[in-house]
């Protein structure tokens, strides 16, 4: 990869483009769906004491869904960017490194064996699961002689294992189709409660990521260089891991495993804005929000009027990207 320093102009251009895209996406997300809700209705009735059915749908279903989608996209993309920075592995992402699958597994366990647990507490189980999945893979990754490709292979295998355990567990669950829907990654049932639950964690994780961004740019040059330039490697790495767990776990707890966002977006972001991680993280957050917002609109339309999990759309987009990476990197590393 060529070390391209961030060009101010390309950063500004990218930001403008992404903001416009996000705005259009949110607009589509808000006004696409089974119920047709004209803008005039929304504007006219916004401050009325007794809102109509349309406005109610708009306020309690469409709006939280759009907000949640954007938040989750930003979370997962930034988590992916952080993972790629600290492992210097192009395949690193919450999906490929077992974070999503681990979080899903522990959340399903909690739902099954602690049925009285409030949904607000599930987020802590998701954190624990994210740590479980991520560290299993990272444990392998840290042994010597592992190529990036092999680590990706290990990650996919761990993902497979955790997912198959999860599948085995949900067979016993009576609300099987609900859990299935959640597992495939979905934000169709988003409520303001979900947004409230995830928001503080998102803010915390994103802030942490932004704070680490400067150090991460140095990280990409290699461990020795980073150490030589006065980076506290262990501290930076631990903080980054904490941010990854928070961002990935919180997203899974609310929306299930929406895959491949964290894999795709950081690559695209680096292409757009260069390798300065302050810019990459910023662009990743915007890009992830854009991608999930559009994917969610598509998920609503592919079997209209029925909902499909957004995770399926992102998987269908992400896997070709993954294959492309495997091919490119496979050739590079042979």
């Amino acid at each position: 990869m060529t070390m391209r320093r961030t060009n101010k102009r390309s950063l500004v251009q990218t930001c403008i483009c992404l903001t416009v895209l996000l705005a259009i996406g949110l607009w589509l997300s808000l006004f696409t769906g089974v119920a047709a809700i004209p803008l005039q209705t929304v504007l006219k009735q916004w401050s009325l004491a007794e809102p109509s059915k349309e406005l109610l749908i708009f306020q309690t279903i469409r709006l939280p869904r759009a907000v949640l989608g954007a938040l989750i996209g930003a979370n997962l993309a930034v988590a992916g960017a952080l993972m790629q920075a600290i492992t210097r592995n192009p395949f690193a992402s919450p999906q490929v490194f077992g974070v999503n699958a681990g979080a899903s597994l522990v959340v399903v366990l909690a739902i099954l064996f602690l049925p009285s647990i409030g949904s607000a507490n599930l987020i802590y189980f998701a954190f624990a699961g994210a740590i479980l999945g991520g560290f299993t893979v990272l444990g392998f990754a840290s042994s010597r002689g592992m190529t990036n490709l092999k680590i990706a292979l290990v990650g996919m295998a761990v993902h497979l294992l955790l997912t198959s355990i999860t599948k085995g567990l949900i067979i016993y669950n009576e609300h099987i189709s609900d859990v299935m829907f959640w597992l495939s990654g979905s934000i169709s049932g988003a409520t303001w409660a979900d947004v409230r639950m995830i928001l503080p964690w998102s803010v915390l994780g994103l802030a942490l990521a932004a704070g680490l961004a400067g150090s991460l740019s140095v990280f990409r040059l290699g461990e020795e260089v980073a150490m030589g330039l006065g980076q506290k490697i262990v501290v930076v790495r631990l903080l980054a891991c904490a941010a990854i767990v928070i961002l990935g776990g919180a997203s899974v707890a609310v929306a299930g495993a929406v895959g491949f966002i964290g894999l795709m977006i950081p690559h695209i972001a680096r292409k757009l804005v260069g390798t300065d991680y302050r810019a990459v993280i910023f662009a990743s957050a915007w890009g992830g929000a854009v991608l999930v917002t559009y994917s969610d609109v598509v998920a609503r339309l592919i079997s209209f009027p029925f909902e499909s999990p957004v995770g399926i759309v992102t998987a269908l987009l992400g896997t070709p990207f993954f294959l492309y990476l495997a091919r490119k990197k496979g050739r590079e590393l042979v």
Partner: protein
Amino acid sequence: MKVDTTAASSKRSSRKAIALFALAAVTIVAAFLGMSVGSVYVAPGQIVAIWTGESSSLSFIVENYRLPRAILAILAGAGFAISGVILQGMIRNPLASPDVIGVTKGAGLFAVAIILFFPHASPLVLPLFAFLGALAVALALIAFARKSGAQPSTFALVGLGVGAVCQALTEFVLVKYPMQANDSLVWLAGSLWGKGWDEIYGLLPWLCVLIPAAFALHRQLDIISLDEHSSTGLGLRVSQSRYGLLLLAVALAGACVAAIGSIGFIGLLAPQIARKLFGNQHRILLPGAAIIGALILVIADAIGRGVNPPVEIPAGILTALIGVPYFLYLVRVEKKRT
């Protein structure tokens, strides 16, 4: 039972033959003992009594549930294992197996689509569509591998990726038609639950053709698992026999998936264990792997049925629990060799 894996003198090969028969006996005993396990315990003595014609309240359970399941486990285990042997030999890749390279996922996708869209389709057409799904994935992989000069791990990685696409599509189908999803989900996780004589009749004709065909091709497999130049030098039409073998492996995997769902990692584990025990000669490796595959599936099914009756753990989850750590181990070992 430590068997040298180098040259095959006649003494060694007779010892291997004895080991083969011993394993076969173990498998049959395991299947027999496994039949007594379940939500209703049937003592082994009682099973014998039922077979010899004594009618009892349990004879229905034994004849219609336990016996067909045991037979099916043996058949499908052998099928997956042979498919794995062929793929590993053909691609010259120890990580290859129908599940790792996504072939079973492709078969699963097509089969789920058929089950949901044509619920009254006869179980006999299911293998055909599963085969088509498996074939589609296999062809996609080959095309990909050819362009990128695939290394073992690249190939496996791409296979896992393709498998993920099929998985996503399968999940989409399942989520879209939740009413029937419960059945397909059990099926997808790979389980012998509720399988009976119908599935055996669906699977048996395929195996009767494909397994002998695989045995007949054992010499070609020996040659093709050498490197490219040697196999051409030994007078083999490499690309032709490679496509033939691929079709064979894919058809086997497809038929087994159609019968019992995508039970993972047998196609990876069984050939590897058989290689350790019987060496690399396909004449003895093929039957060895088949027996080991049957044994693994029989045990997995019995455990899944017996751990927490009446709830069943799908056998596919148990095989994944053993198989994934082994897969990870293989990835590590491969690293040290290169």
